[in-house]
């Protein structure tokens, strides 16, 4: 059995350490994030891990004002869609960006957000 190059667990272990790791298809060169078994473009299963720089621009954003259970102390908070320089996108929590300063086209940089045992993806000022 082929071992996955990047698993969900290893992805977030890397995130916690401040690294963003995607996978690149060694056949067609396609980048994928999050990791998966088959290349959506060429259907091969020959990936290699690739480090992503973490820089990108905001392509959409929202400010969550009515949060799910347990997150009331955090609200309001912003979730952003970021297109990374390498061409793949990622969702993250906006960090250290005033809510009123959010706009599409804003340059941002990846940073991990670690709270208790949970690690999530964050984006702060570039």
């Amino acid at each position, binding site marked *: 059995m082929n071992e996955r190059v990047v698993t*969900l667990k290893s992805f*977030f272990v890397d995130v916690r350490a401040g690294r963003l790791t995607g996978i690149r298809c060694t056949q067609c060169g396609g980048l994928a*994030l*999050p990791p998966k078994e088959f290349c959506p473009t060429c259907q091969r299963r020959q990936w290699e891990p690739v480090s992503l720089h973490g820089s990108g621009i905001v*392509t*959409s*954003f*929202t*400010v*969550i*004002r*009515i*949060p*799910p*259970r*347990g*997150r*009331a102390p*955090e*609200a309001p*908070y912003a*979730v952003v*869609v970021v297109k990374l320089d390498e061409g*793949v*996108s*990622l*969702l*993250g*929590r906006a960090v250290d960006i005033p809510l009123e300063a959010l706009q*599409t086209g804003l340059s941002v940089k990846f940073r991990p957000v670690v709270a208790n045992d*949970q690690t*999530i*993806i964050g984006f702060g000022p570039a």
Partner: protein
Amino acid sequence: MRRVAVIGVGITRFGKHDCTSTELFAAAAAEAIADADIAPRDVQALYYGNVTGGETERQLHMGPLAATTLGLPTIPTTRVEAACATSHAAFRHGVMEIASGVSDVVLVGGAERVLNVPTDAATEYFAYCSDASYEQSLGLTFPGVFALIARAHMERYGTTEEQMAHVAVKNHRHGVLNPKAQFQKEISLEAVLRSPYVADPLKLYDCCPFTDGGAAVVLAAEEVVKKRRRAIWVLATVAAADTMFLSEKRDLWRVAATERAALRAYRQAGKTPADVDVAELHDCFTIAEIVATEGLGFFEPGSGGIAAEKGWTSLGGKIPVNPSGGLKAKGHPIGATGAAQIGEIVTQLRGEAGARQVDGASTGLVHTLGGNTATVLVSLLGRE
């Protein structure tokens, strides 16, 4: 493949109920079986939709419980879960079971009960329909998912918050005409625009409510149907899918699965968007209706907001959309929604929709979207 028809529909009043989800379904199913003019024992199988019962009612194994509550404990059941498209997916499986010759009469539908838990708990359970690691973990809610889509549509096409508000005003106006709707009350454009933000740019009145309710549909093979004048034919039923991850959607301002499902459904039925007389489509948020009217081919990409503003989707407009009041005013019990939408279109095509009847409607479309746009079902129904 055999032709399949809808011969009975049943829908509970949508809103808050003090009974279990399977009781809600059983009430709707009893109405559908009576409407079909068959004996309960004629039903050979049940495809049952429910999403959050494990959380809100601590109840799994919902299929046999639903059949048992109905008084048909020995029919085989399958529970379907496809987020908000759940009972439309159940409908498609029922159609396939009959078309393939396995059964002649099949009951499909679903129910949901969420108003027995606090709003923040229901918000959490609905968020389970997006990915746990990459999306839920950020605190992204369902209004948040559609807010991201709305922002992208606004940036791409110049769609405005006021255009989105027109969808809410129209669907509430329609809801007044539906005695089963959760909200039978008109709202003003100003009230929508003044309502507080839930997830910018979506405001409270851009969002459908949490709802308890049940809906059921009786399907039958052509051989059974022959002499039934009120039978409505399934011209096409198609499921399409897209990546679970919002970050992987090619264009956030489109719903690719809607476009794929629609294309295949029109082809299967030999119809075009211009043939559709009435549509029930998935307006979980006002922006969702705008994007769906584009993806289904009723309007050019980017002009869904203008269509809402001009009243083209209103009863009496070019293409009446959501005469039932839609998810926005009729309510959105997620496990029942698809079957309820089908029930409305069947009622319209029979000419039995009363004050909200689209005159002479002979072809209807049903569009149901699941969760973060990863699942879409489109069905076309017709009198002939």
